[in-house]
């Protein structure tokens, strides 16, 4: 009965498209609808938002295809895909050479960028990676130690399970060593707190920077401004890739897995990535 319905839908679609004379699109539509089954994914908790958004959106193009993501952490996701337990392993870091040697393919689907913000009157415009790590671990407590005014530093961050915090601590290699004076559970709250508090520093996802540049300063890291272009060329360091790893190339994967990647590369898929505030990598 369901198949009949799909067939009927395909007929209607093809009828409606006769006028356009675009038979290729027509064919694409019907194969899309035909892919059915499930794809099991496991890995990074930071990719939860992206996965859930994809899971929702993919139904529009592939109503019969369901994604089943689990969030256990990047490392275990890659292990799971290497052992063949799952179809796709999610990782919010680049794969190591060892992992690549096992035949795991690193498919970067998105980039995640983090910007550092300070209060408007702060004169410090640039920090090195090391200085930033020292500020967040509590070794540097005053802006004058990094070339600013004699002003105490108020360290603002996100709550423990936040993806932004995870990324920030992972990239700077200060996981679980940070000493926060404020743990807020929203990006907006971080911006507000930094804006209100002299001497405050905070991290936010990159997409928020453009909207809040009147309220807070954005710091350069090692002399490089945070922007989409510096993230894409890799010069800005506070970034990480979102990898959907497969065992072997995408072309060798099952029809379902290929459908997932086809969807991600389609216009709708890219819109989903933008919608969850990520940057689309250059192909």
């Amino acid at each position: 009965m369901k198949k009949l319905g799909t067939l009927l839908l395909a007929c209607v679609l093809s009828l409606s498209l006769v006028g356009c004379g675009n038979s290729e699109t027509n064919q694409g539509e019907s194969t899309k609808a035909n892919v059915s089954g499930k794809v099991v994914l496991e890995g990074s908790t930071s990719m939860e938002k992206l996965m859930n958004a994809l899971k929702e959106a993919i139904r529009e193009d592939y109503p019969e295809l369901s994604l089943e993501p689990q969030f256990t952490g990047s490392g275990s996701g890659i292990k799971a895909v290497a052992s063949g337990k799952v179809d796709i392993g999610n990782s919010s870091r680049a794969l190591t050479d060892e992992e690549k040697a096992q035949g795991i393919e690193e498919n970067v689907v998105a980039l995640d960028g983090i910007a550092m913000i300070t209060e408007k009157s702060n004169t410090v415009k640039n920090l090195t990676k090391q200085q930033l790590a020292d500020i967040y671990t509590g070794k540097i407590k005053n802006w004058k130690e990094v070339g600013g005014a004699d002003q105490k530093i108020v360290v603002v961050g996100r709550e423990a399970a936040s993806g932004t915090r995870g990324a920030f601590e992972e990239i700077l290699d200060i996981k679980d060593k940070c000493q926060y004076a404020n743990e807020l559970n929203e990006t907006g709250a971080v911006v507000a707190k930094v804006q209100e508090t002299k001497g405050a520093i905070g991290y936010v996802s990159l997409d928020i920077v453009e909207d809040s540049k009147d309220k807070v300063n954005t710091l350069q890291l090692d002399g490089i401004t945070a922007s989409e272009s510096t993230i894409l060329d890799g010069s800005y360091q506070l970034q990480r890739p979102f990898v959907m790893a497969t065992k072997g190339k995408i072309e060798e994967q099952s029809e379902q897995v290929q459908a997932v990647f086809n969807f991600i590369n389609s216009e709708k898929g890219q819109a989903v990535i933008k919608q969850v505030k990520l940057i689309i990598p250059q192909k």
Partner: protein
Amino acid sequence: MERSMLSILAHHKSKSTVEKAAAIILKGCAIVSIIAVLSITAYMFISGTPALFKVGLTDILFGQVWAPTATHPEYGILYIILTSILGVFLAIGIAVPIGLLTAINLSEIASKRVRKVVKSAIELLAGIPSVVYGLLGILIINPLMYQLELFIFKDSLTHQFTGGSNLISAILVLAIMILPTLINISETALKTVPDDYRKSSLALGASQIQTIFKVVLPAAKNGIMSAIVLGVGRAIGEAMAILLVAGNSVNIPLPFHSVRFLTTAIVTEMSYASGLHREVLFTIGLILFIFIICINLVLTYILTRGDQHE
């Protein structure tokens, strides 16, 4: 018109049906709330206890490190519990004198016009959503606290600056929030003291202030106690306002430390938490729930003791 309506004035048969139906509906409504309480209790215990066994009771209750997402996660909530207890009691300590004196003023001293103005102000205070208190805390109390912090710890090399988001800010916000509860209930309690008491006392030559503090207040003691207990209940369950002003880092509850309460511990991390971390958050919920139950038991005790006296 009257005959066609289903009314208690109708025939005996339809009358008794109405009576029975009404009784069933009333019972049903009463049962709904009992079911709600029972299912919430059951649910809190079912979802809150597994983590206690997985992590260990003492590790949760007396552990001092809260690092749920670390490679070796630790789920100690001792500081969180202490913060909640200390914060609430200090807030009560500030709010009770103010609230009680306001209530005395309203019920014993104030003229009708003053009473009307103050009363409507308090009602307004009670109606303000808690998040608005939080916003006011961010705008007014936090900057003031930050000035104070900069002044006090000017030369300190070890103090971590919080930008004013600290225990004091949270206590001040809580104190303001529980004022309406305190004032309204203690005022009602004072009002129920029979006028004969006051008149007798005045007739014996006591001044008005003597009458209030020696006669009326002791007579209204139980009502005032229940006002305080309800205030504690409201303060310990408050999350939104203190989420905005307390800073939310897990620290020893000292005045200028950024602190996390039981409620905010759940609110901040619930959305992203998974696995054991999530279960521990439910355990925190359970602990909060047990606190509230204890407070209610105390309240019931006070009220029944009051009945026995009369």
